[in-house]
């Protein structure tokens, strides 16, 4: 043995130590760290989402309002793209070389290995010609998807539209949405998103290093099928809706029709509207911007977002509330000398000198003076302090669904405006104010804001003689036709049934008696009860309002029509409502064609596009103004 024998141990020691280092490192990456297991899954597993069909929305007779249509997305896996005829490719899908480079750079920076969308929503024609030559363009393929299609182009505002999810939605969705998914943004599409979208399925595909599929992971054990979204049966009557939209063409305003017995909305028109198909397809972005910049604001959902002082139709509410308080009854007479004197110098003008007027006539003839006295009784002479009396009045009016959202199944509903006593106390710097300070409220002017939906709901209350169901647009969900519980609950308006007779009698007179303000809108053989209103508009022609229900016995429809810049309620709103009611109840129109054509073709749009848009919320001149002026308050309202 030579002298360096001991070095054997050094050498062996080095070998052993290094081997132990190898084993420790292996133990770390194989057993302790699970980073590599995840990476391996990322490498080999491709989770392909299987998209469910979005739920279809039907009308109340189960006719299709919105359905799905296949479109074709052009996908690309940048790494697999080989040299090809770029020019031919560009001309096939209709882009230029620059656009091609831009898109290609974008998808490649996303991932060279994963498939991403190169061009969205090819048309069927492009798809067909592209598919034939697909083999020339390796790395490209076509994936089909569905988009929304609206066969009759109606109901844009209530159906709403869908669009790609943004980053925030993705983050808040607990992993449900991925980049490029669609979700409901407005309307029913948004409110029922979770039911409509269905359940996505997943295919776990294994791919090799070149991203070629190699079959299902674990023989498809973890794959799931897509579950289609629930279909929705809406409360809408397609034909009524269609006719309503046609009638409102070239007019600004709303139509809301409700079935009083259920709260189902039969018609929901917001005008000007737009073709919902504009919000689908490759031009969506441009269309959207055009609609957004339109001075008439077609994206504004007027039936639930426009707030108007209701005008004379509010007399119906005051008549009922005052009776409920026991302050007037059908035998209460007031004398109308052509106006109502209040405060020291106030004068609320009436349209005519009505002389001695009872409750029924006050409705039929829309006497301002009568409601001036009635309001004064409710606030000043009810035996309690006026402020407290106002509080009582406020809560009674609130029970009609005024001043708070009704809770319709659409996003963006406004609550309207019913001023509280605090507002006035603050304004008058003392709580010692009485009816003369707020006299406009007696005839539905002043600080009131009511949406067309709330107007229609008031009619539903009158039709039902004291109660309403929450107005809603979706009456049944899915195959089981599930109805949401909240829509089966009776809401009381706090008015006893007996007080309705006289009011309804008056409303019947409005339409069915020659002295009524809507006599020209009488429907043969049907007793429609209604009330006209005129919303004062300081910026132009007044807004025409008409609310009604029909038939008087066992009412089937309650309706509110608002035509902005339409003048008197009887001029445009009442004929339109009348035509719709007749159409709904008899499925025919008795009016001569020439009469209907006048309605269809009338153009009430204010001025050119340069002119500022009529504000939705019209504040009439406040009492303060009239108090200061010596002139009679002729500007407060125009009555019919």
């Amino acid at each position: 043995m030579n002298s360096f024998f001991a070095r054997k141990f050094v050498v062996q020691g080095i070998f052993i130590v290094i081997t132990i280092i190898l084993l420790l490192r292996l133990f770390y990456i194989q057993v302790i760290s699970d980073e590599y297991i995840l990476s391996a899954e990322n490498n080999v597993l491709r989770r392909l989402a299987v998209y469910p069909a979005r739920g279809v929305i039907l009308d109340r007779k189960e006719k299709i309002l919105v359905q799905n249509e296949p479109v074709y997305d052009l996908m690309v896996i940048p790494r697999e793209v080989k040299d090809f005829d770029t020019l031919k490719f560009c001309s096939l899908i209709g882009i230029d070389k620059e656009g091609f480079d831009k898109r290609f750079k974008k998808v490649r920076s996303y991932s060279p290995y994963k498939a991403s969308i190169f061009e969205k929503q090819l048309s069927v024609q492009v798809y067909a010609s592209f598919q034939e030559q697909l083999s020339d363009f390796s790395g490209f393929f076509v994936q089909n998807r569905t988009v929304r299609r609206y066969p009759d182009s109606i109901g844009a505002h209530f159906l709403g539209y869908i669009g790609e999810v943004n980053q925030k939605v993705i983050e808040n969705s607990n992993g449900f949405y991925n980049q490029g998914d669609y979700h409901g943004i407005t309307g029913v599409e948004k409110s029922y998103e979770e039911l409509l979208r269905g359940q996505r399925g997943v295919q776990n595909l294994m791919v090799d290093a070149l991203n070629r599929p190699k079959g299902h992971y674990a023989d498809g054990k973890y794959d799931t099928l897509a579950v289609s979204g629930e279909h929705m049966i809406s409360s809408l009557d397609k034909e009524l809706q269609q006719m309503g939209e046609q009638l409102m063409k070239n007019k600004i305003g709303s139509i809301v029709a409700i079935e009083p017995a259920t709260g189902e909305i039969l018609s929901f028109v917001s005008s000007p509207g737009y073709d919902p198909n504009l919000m689908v397809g490759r031009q969506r972005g441009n269309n959207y911007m055009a609609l957004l910049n339109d001075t008439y604001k077609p994206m504004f959902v007027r039936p639930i977002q426009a707030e108007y002082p209701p005008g004379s139709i509010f007399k119906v509410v005051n008549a009922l509330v005052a009776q409920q308080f026991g302050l007037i009854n059908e035998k209460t007479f007031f004398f109308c000398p052509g106006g109502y004197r209040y405060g020291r110098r106030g004068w609320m003008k009436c349209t005519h000198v009505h002389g001695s007027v009872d409750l029924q006539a006050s409705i039929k003839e829309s006497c301002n003076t009568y409601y001036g006295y009635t309001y004064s009784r409710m606030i000043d002479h009810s035996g309690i302090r006026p402020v407290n009396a106002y509080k009582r009045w406020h809560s009674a009016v609130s029970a009609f669904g005024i001043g708070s959202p009704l809770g319709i199944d659409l996003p963006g509903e406004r609550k309207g405006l019913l001023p509280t006593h605090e507002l006035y106390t603050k304004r008058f710097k003392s709580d010692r104010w009485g009816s003369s300070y707020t006299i406009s409220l007696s005839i539905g002017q002043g600080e009131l804001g009511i949406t067309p939906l709330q107007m229609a709901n008031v009619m539903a209350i009158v039709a039902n003689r004291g109660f309403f169901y929450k107005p809603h647009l979706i009456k049944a969900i899915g195959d089981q036709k599930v109805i949401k519980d909240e829509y089966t609950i009776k809401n009381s308006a706090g008015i006893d049934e007996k007080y309705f007779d006289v009011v309804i009698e008056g409303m019947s007179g409005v339409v069915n008696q020659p002295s009524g303000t809507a006599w020209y809108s009488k429907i043969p053989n049907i007793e429609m009860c209604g009330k006209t209103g005129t919303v004062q508009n300081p910026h132009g022609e007044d807004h025409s309002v008409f609310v009604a229900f029909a038939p008087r016995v066992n009412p089937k429809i309650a309706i509110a029509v608002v035509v902005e810049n339409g003048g008197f309620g009887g001029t445009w709103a009442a004929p339109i409502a009348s035509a719709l009611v007749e159409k709904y109840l008899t499925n025919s129109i008795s009016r001569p064609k020439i009469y209907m054509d006048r309605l269809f073709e009338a153009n009430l749009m204010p001025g050119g596009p340069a002119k500022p848009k009529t504000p939705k919320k019209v504040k009439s001149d406040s009492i303060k103004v009239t108090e200061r002026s010596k002139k009679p308050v002729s500007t407060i309202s125009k009555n019919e």
Partner: protein
Amino acid sequence: MNNQRSLFFNVDWFIIITYIILCIIGWFNIHAAVYDPENPSIVDLDTNYGKQLIFIVSAVIIGFAILLLDGKFFTAFSPVFYGITLVLLILVLIIGRNVGGNQAWIPIGNFRLQPSEFAKFATCLLLARYLSSSTIKVQDLRTQMVAAFIIVIPTALILLQPDAGSALTFSSLIFVLYREGLSGYFLIIEGLSIVLFILTVLYNKFYVLAGVILLAGSLIYLFRRNKKVITVMGFGVLFSIVFIFSVDFAYNSILKPHQKNRIDVILGKINDPRGIGYNLNQSKIAIGSGGMWGKGYLQGTQTKYNFVPEQSTDFIFCTVGEEWGFAGCFVVIGLYLFLILRVVTIAERQRSPFSRIYGYGVASILFFHFFINIGMTIGLIPVIGIPLPFLSYGGSSLWSFTILLFILLKLDSNRMGII
């Protein structure tokens, strides 16, 4: 010598059995690496694992043929082997086939011969013969120069291909020289160089320098009575300064970008799994996803679907790691360690210095391949393309390792005969 003795008289069966087990493990893993689940085929001689079967059978035949030869043959003919190898190494530069940037293969029919593989045992043999001469002392500068010369000539020729991985293999022969009496400082310097190299590449060279001086200074202060320590430290600092600056220069000016990148990736300076670090990253993923018990034979997704490049040759260990898990790796590494320690034991029991030196050469080369290859697949050291002995696919490497090992077995079986 008694010719009546059996072929296997005195042969070390531990080594032969370990060798055969490793070859079989290699064959199964090559099968798994090239296995295509869509076209599962039984043994097919056109595939890698079919060819590997031929290589294994022929390697075993070659091994036993070596046992038939006379032990003195290798001592006597070692300069001839060395000479032939040098000729082949020069030849490959002229007529060789260029595969993947390395001109390392001489095509012979269907197969390709890789002379650098055979240079390993030829160099070992000549080195053993030179150092075993009775007049030689390794401590002499002249001896060190000649020994270095023997090692450097084939190394330089291989570097010309350029095959840095195979060339590096020869650096492992320092263990042989150390065992024969080379100063231990050389080992320390080698270790120190590696540490300094990594630190210099990773951090600012001046910080590293400051650290070295600080460390040496405090050591000198601690041992201020001991003149020897002070001298050694002084030289150490001097060496470090020179080394750090030359590494800095070499790294920034001499290394080719791809070599620099490999080092950067391993040291974590670049984190770009899709680019330069792809091989390494995929290899780590494959092994790391194996877990404790592995995914099972033919069940590895990473290796089966070609995520790992070179998976039947240099990255064969990925298949082991993925399909057999830590347990499998433990067994394979254990077999290697057993084999290498057994080789060292055998070397130490030789009476002839030639056999002992040769034995250490075998152990060093096997260990170097084993450590570099596995270390590379799990990201401990830069990606250096050298095969894993007996497991990697390839005839030249299997044959050369077989020859390397069986010459030792033959020498060992004669250990009693030579005094």
